[in-house]
């Protein structure tokens, strides 16, 4: 009898622990946004077509999400994810911002005219420093940012259909 009770007791504790693990597996893991906001704050970055300078925080407007996609014409997986970026560009409350990473302007332009331009605005990161400041790892990389400048999600590497659907779900 005593052993049975012990068993039930241990069993319940373990089930509890495991179910908590299970629950937190599917929690939406937001990044702690504070530092990244500060980094975004005062950088002014040149726009691709107009050569105007923008501050990243000017791009944000209330009730709108931003997808910040770091890409380059020389990057093979960027071509692969281009379709999904294009699909995202038609979503209503989502602004797609491209950050052109260490690229030649001609090549980048050709990339866009070949495949289509999914971006609402494209910024230039000529020597790759802005990307470092965003905490990026390489190209391609995609950040989902809300109107309060919180980075909700960060995708390292090309995004796929699954990620696209996830982004659409997140911003609803």
């Amino acid at each position, binding site marked *: 009898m005593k052993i049975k009770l012990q068993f039930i007791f241990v069993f319940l504790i373990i089930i509890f622990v*495991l179910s908590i693990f299970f629950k937190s597996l599917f929690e939406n893991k937001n990044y702690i946004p504070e530092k990244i906001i500060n980094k975004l704050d005062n950088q002014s970055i040149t726009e691709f077509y107009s050569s105007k300078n923008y501050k990243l925080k000017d791009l944000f407007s209330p009730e709108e999400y931003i997808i910040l996609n770091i890409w380059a014409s020389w990057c093979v997986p960027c071509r692969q994810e281009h379709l999904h970026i294009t699909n995202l560009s038609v979503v209503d409350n989502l602004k797609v911002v491209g950050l052109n990473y260490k690229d030649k302007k001609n090549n980048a332009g050709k990339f866009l005219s070949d495949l289509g331009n999914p971006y609402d605005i494209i910024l230039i990161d000529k020597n790759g420093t802005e990307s470092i*400041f965003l905490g990026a*790892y390489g190209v391609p990389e995609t950040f989902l940012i809300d109107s309060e400048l919180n980075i909700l999600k960060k995708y390292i590497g090309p995004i796929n259909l699954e990620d696209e659907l996830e982004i659409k779900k997140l911003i609803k």
Partner: protein
Amino acid sequence: MLNLIGNYSLVLALTISIIIIFLSFKTFKSKENITFNIFFIISSQFFLICISFLTLLLAFVYSDFSNLAVYFNSHSSKPLFYKISGTWGNHEGSLLLWLLVLSLFNLIFYIKSKKLLNAFRSLTIFFQQIIILGFLLFIFFTSNPFQLVIPTPIEGLGLNPILQDPALAIHPPILYLGYVGSSIIFSSSLSALVCNYVNKEWASDIKKWTLISWIFLTVGIMLGSIWAYYELGWGGFWFWDPVENVSLMPWLCLTALLHCTSVLKKRLNLKSWTIILAISTFILSMSGTFLVRSGILNSVHTFANDPERGLFILIFLTFLILISLIIYFKHNNFNQENKSFIFSKESAIVINNWFMMYFLSVVLIGTVYPIFLEAITNEKISVGPPYFNQLIIPFLIPFLIIMALGPKLEWIKNKKVRVKLTKIILFVLSIFISYLIVRHFSTKVLYLTILISPSLYLFFISVIDLNDEKLKLSQKLSHFGFSILIVSIILNSLFSEEVSVNLKKGEERQLSNYLLKFKNITKTEIDNFTSLKAEIHVIQNNKELKFYPELRLYKVPETITSEADIKTNLFNDNLVVVNYLKDTDYLNIRYQKKPFMLLIWISAILLAIGGMIGLRKDFK
């Protein structure tokens, strides 16, 4: 081509695994002798997994970017050494390494256990094979290292530069050897329970495996902290980072088990406790893997976050825990054990175990509490060093004193302990020394100063014990190593100094006792990064030290890392780290003085050497 060979050998290994599970269960049921067949099948499984690991290694060495894992984690301009270590520097490859070690240990167990009971052997292989099968399925369905990229990219994405470090290149494999060694302990104790084989013979067999995994885990953890100290440049060696804790927990459990098995071996006592420890060691290793790989914990060690992988490990973990719970409660019918003696070695060891369990639970709670809190209340917290210090340090005091006295006690006998004069003198001496230290140096941390006397006491006693013929060399050496470890950690955290300043080239600044001069900076292009070397002079008491810390700008992937310049001698580490300040000509310069760093590494090595000597003795 390579991908195909690797993939198909995995498939074959999977099939063989099912065959072994079937065969070993059959031999267990029919109580037949294990036949040659099983040996043949086990070694061919090992051979197949070897092949698949080698193909992955070759794919990395030859930069075959048609392989997804290679494409994501390698780059053709990387030095060969890091191409090789890149094989296990990523999630998929490291799992393949786990699997390789699992099957290797399975084979070694088979070869080394010929003297033991047949039913026990076949059942152990059965359980071990279930673990192998679990990992094979995991690799196959969620993290196959042989996925193709079509079309083949021209260049890879590169290995994260902070992972490009010699200590880190060998740290994971050694740690895995430790983790995986505990899998044998797990399967062997489950099967010993079922076969009612928990006896002295079993104890001396399991002690070997415990020692093996303990040694590897000790060295693995040490290499990890060496990496954190030299490469991350955080100016410390232990941060209570969740992933570090995850490797510390099985270590604590193994240490307890190590002491426990000697009681079992000598006195046939503590049977069920030994089994519980053996099971929990592996469960803790697996939960650690789960926490790290599922991305629930965020830290420098986190591999790609993927709930699917986490889910798989979680299901597997639940399965293993349930099996072991059911077997434990069904077969746990040990009689009430022999009566115990208060002043005997057993009780000292039991007390050691209590403390180990206490430390274990502190670390465990500190690690998983944030996860629980977030799951239940959505609040995010991180548990830092103050929590661990406050809960662990007070309990270290009695622990260290008992550790100093325990080994001298005798088995079984309940002799009144004669308190020797030397011990009292040493105790007074250590209190006196710590008084002097507190008096003469302005110490900041109250807790730590209390710890000085017991740790010095342990140190003195273990130095004297080194000459004691009655004690085992392995034990003397390990305890001696541990005492140095504790003393140097305490002195290190008491006497570390740090100054930090932003300087331009040519500037100098006086900070407390130190004069920092930024003399020069040079730029050189090296293989896969650009190096900026600063020349910095630190002057204290008319002694001038020159430092050449470095900033590395990696091209692929684009990252800046900072390499400290460290001047080491036996008693002091002096180091300078520079950091890049954006859009300025300034560099942030940090000078640190860390006493006894070298002793910390040496003492960890002594611990491991003690273990190795013990292992050699057991194999004789």
